Every structure is written in C-alpha cells, then in structure tokens.
C-alpha cells in the first residue's frame, strides 16, 4: 500500500516535472520569438532611417527610361512607412531572403552560408579550449585549497581579463598562433572567475563541510558532492560563454584575416552596410539566445532529477 502511494507520488512528481520543463521551453521559445521580432523591427528602423536609404544608384542608370525610373521611385516611396518596410523585410526573411549586402553586392544568405562554418569551427574550438583551461585551473584551485595557488590562478586570469580582446588577436598573429587559441584566451578568464566562485560557494555548504569533517577523500568530495551542486549553474555559464566567444570572433577574425562572420560584421561596419550588419546581429543574437535557453533548460532538468 505504502509502496503504491510512493510510486503514485513519484509519478505525480514526474508529471509535474515534465510539465514544468515543457512550460520552461515554451517560455524560452516565446522570449526568443519576441526578441527576434523586436530586434528585427529595430534593425529595419535603423536601415530605414540610415542616410542614403532614399537614393538608389539604379535611378542614375542612363539606360532606364523615365517610366522605369518612376517605378523605382514609387517602389522606394512604398517603403517610407517603417512598419510596412518591416513587414516586407519579414516576409522576405520567411522565404530565406535576408536582403542584399550594399558593400559586397551579394545576398546576405549566400554570404552567411560561405562564412558561418569557419566561425562555428573557431568559436567551437575556442570554447573547448577556454573551458578546458578554466576548469583545470578552477578545479585544481578548489581541490588543492592552497591560498598561494588560488592567488596565482586568479592573477593569471585577471591579467588576461585586463587585456583587450583585439590585442590578444594581434598577439596571436604576431606569434602565429591559431585564431581559436585567441578566442579561448579571451573567454577563459570570465569562465574561470564564475567557475571558481561557484566551486568556492559549493565548498562552503554545510553538507560538504560535514563530509570533510568525516574524512572523505578530496577527490570523492569534489566529484560526488561539489560538482553536482555547481553543475547546473556552470551550465548557465556555458550559455553565457557562447555569447562571449561569438563577440570575440569579431576582433580575432578581423585582425587575423579569417573570412568568417566576425570579419564580415567588421567589414559591414566599416562600409556602413546596415542591411548586412543588422541581419548578422539578429542571427548572432538568435544563436546566443538559443545557447542560453538550452543551458537553462538542461540545468533545470538536472536540478529536477537531483531533487
């Protein structure tokens, strides 16, 4: 009887948990959709209000007759209303048309297809490197619990935190180091700082102090008690680190001469190519939002399983 009640309770908890996860995913999905729509409106407004929007080089083509020029002017006039212009852009985006780059004269979707793989590889390897270094330092500092070593690791990460990302990119060019290493070095101090603080907080928890007092080995405390506590929060840091790495791709690709999305954004900024730049920004925002939401949902699931 008691067993059946227990089983019923467990099933009820499981149902509640599943419902919570679904609700959380739906909330994140809604937030992403609203952010992208609002971001799109903001971008369309920027493009629409940018100087030179009303002028079209095609109107100066001597081969066009007056009716064609008039038709071009009429088409521009129809885009004067920001909301109508936004709706047009949105409709085109739904069909995969993200507009045409002013400076490069190519469709934005084609440019993205060409450049995204390199950026994804750079950011991916950079993130792996940054997490490997940050976790190695944070875990060793937490495991050794020696203040001299803790100070040393903090000084190392603090020094990298005080160097501009673009300088690290320049130094990587100078030393012929791969761009992914530069991204790793830009992101690692931030990850280390969060990871170290989370591990330090976990070590101060009463049940871990009790475990230490009972004489459990350091390794057992670290892997059985500390990491499960800090894990879900570390996942949230993983989401944030994606945003940091994507941001770091701009100086690294621009200064290392790597033809990725970061370099494209930099070129677009220099050429004031707003359609390209705003599309890139929205796509990057979408990627970072997905990473953050994914980290949050997985963290929630882990916490739920633990409880």
């Amino acid at each position: 009887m008691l067993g059946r009640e227990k089983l019923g309770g467990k099933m009820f908890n499981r149902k509640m948990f599943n419902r919570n996860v679904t609700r959380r995913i739906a909330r994140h999905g809604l937030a992403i959709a609203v952010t992208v729509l609002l971001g799109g409106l903001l971008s369309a407004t920027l493009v629409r209000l940018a100087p030179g929007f009303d002028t079209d080089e095609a109107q100066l083509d001597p081969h066009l007759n007056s009716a064609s020029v008039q038709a071009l002017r009429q088409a521009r006039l129809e885009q004067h209303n920001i909301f109508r212009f936004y709706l047009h852009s949105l409709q085109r985006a739904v069909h995969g048309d993200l507009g045409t780059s002013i400076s490069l004269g190519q469709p934005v979707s084609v440019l993205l297809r060409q450049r995204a793989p390199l950026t994804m590889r750079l950011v991916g390897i950079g993130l792996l490197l940054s997490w490997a270094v940050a976790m190695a330092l944070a875990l060793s500092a937490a495991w050794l619990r020696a203040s001299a070593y803790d100070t040393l690791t903090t000084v190392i990460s603090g020094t990298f935190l005080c160097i501009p990302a673009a300088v690290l990119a320049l130094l990587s060019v100078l030393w012929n180091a791969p761009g992914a290493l530069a991204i790793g070095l830009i992101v690692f101090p931030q990850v280390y700082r969060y990871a170290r603080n989370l591990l330090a907080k976990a070590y101060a928890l009463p049940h871990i102090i009790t475990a230490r007092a009972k004489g459990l080995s350091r390794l057992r405390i670290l892997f059985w008690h500390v990491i499960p506590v800090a894990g879900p929060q570390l996942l949230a840091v993983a989401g944030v680190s994606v945003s940091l790495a994507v941001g770091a791709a701009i100086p690294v690709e621009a200064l290392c001469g790597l033809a990725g999305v970061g370099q494209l954004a930099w070129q677009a900024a220099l050429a004031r190519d707003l359609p390209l730049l705003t599309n890139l920004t929205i796509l990057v925002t979408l990627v970072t939002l997905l990473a953050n939401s994914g980290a949050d949902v997985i963290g929630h699931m882990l916490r739920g399983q633990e409880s």
Partner: protein
Amino acid sequence: MSLGVFRLHDGIRSMNFWRTLACVVLLLAVSLSLAANWLAPAGYAKQYRDATDAAPSRQHWLGTDEIGRDRFARVLYGTRISLLLAPAAALLSTLMAALVGGLAGYLGGAWARAAMAVTDLCLSLPWLFLLITVRAVLPLNVTPLVSVLVTFLMLGLLGWTSAARVLCSTAGSLRDSDFVRQARASGIRSARLFWIHVLPNLKPVLYAQFWISIPAFILSEANLGILGLGVAEPMPSWGSLLKELEGLVSVGEEPWKFVPLVLLVVVVTSFQLVLSRQDEAAA
C-alpha cells in the same frame, strides 16, 4: 580562533595595501595625463618629419610613430582622453541604470517586467556586435573631437543594462522592506519616498556599478579603436595607440610600442583592485 583573527587581519591589511597601491597608480596616471601640456608642450599631432618611426631617444622618450609624431606625447594625451571620458561614460550609464532599473524595481509589477524585458533584449546582443552596429549607424566621417564624444557617449548609453538588472532586484527588495512600508503607511508620496528613502539605499550598488563600468568601457574603447571604429585620427586614445601593434613583426623588435598596452593593463587592473570585496558583493 586567535589564529583565524590574525589571518583575517593579515588578509584585510594586504587587501588594503593593494587598494592603496591601486589608488596611487590611478592618481599618478591621472596627474601625468593632466600635466600633458607641460610634459609634452609640442602636442600630440606635431610631426617630426626627419625622425619618422624613430627609436627612443632623449628628444622622444618613447620614439616616434610612422608619421613622426612623438609617442610619449600621444600616450599622455591618449591617457587623458581614456581616463577622463571612461568615468564620464560610466557615470552616464550608472545614472541611466539607476533611473531605469531603480525606478522599475521600486514600482514593481508590469513596470519591472517591461523594463527587464528591454534589459534582457539588450543583454542578449553580444556587446561588440551591438557596439559596431550602433557605431556604423552614426557618422564615421566626423571631426576627431566629435568621434571621441560619439564613442564614449555610445558606451555610456548602451552600457547600462547589466547594472539596471542588479538595481531592479535591489530596489525590488527595498520596496518590500519594513521601513518603506512604514513610510508608505505614513502617507509619504511615492516620488519623495523614492528620492529620499530608496535612492540613498541604492548608493553602494550604484558606486560598485560605476567602478565596474570604467575598466569595461576602457577595454571596449580599446577594442573599437584597434578595429578602426573608435576615436578618429589624429586624436590619440589607448585604442588608436594600440593599433600600432598591428604592424609589428616580432615582440622583441620594438618593445617600446608595448608601453600603451602595459599602461592600459596596469590602469585596468588598478580599477579592479580599487573595488573592495564588499563593493563587489554589492554589485
């Protein structure tokens, strides 16, 4: 127990030592940059055409750049621009954060939700992408002075979001505190309550956010400057001075070109050391 107290004392003493040292370094950097007119009377734009790309000498302590401008003068004037305008931008962003975050947290409900939705939208944009997008919208071909103001104004106007989030939650907890409830029950008007009772209690958070923003803005300006989207020539800033590193072939070849980088790292580190642990916790 006594050993613990001694350790605590030692810790506080060593922390105070580093904070004092950081304050001294910052004071020294500000004083030197303010004395630039006396230390380098020729100015940052004067060209010595017979000594282009020269090594350090008695006339040019840090050598000259590729068009013959004295690097020492440019470092002093660049330090002045970065050290005066980054705190100004930090002040602007902190005030905006206080206004948006503080007020939203104090009012609560739909106001807080709306303000935090806007904040989340801004926070989800990677910082450098946001900066270069907004910088590209603003005119790039402006006078050097306007470019300086545009760069730091942009940093100030865009950098308030994370601070607003912290202030919103702090103001939200103050709204539910006993003394605010009592003040409200006594019939004090909302505006007066916010101005007299809530805002002064947000001071530690505002102070910490202000100090945290300064190094972040210095680093952002440096990144923009190196990418050619910051302060325009011939005006020097740490970003434009670091752009010189682009032409280096090896580190040991012209080590004096690293002086601006060393100065930037020392100053940014000092700003981070000035914040005490309590201030960091408040932020």
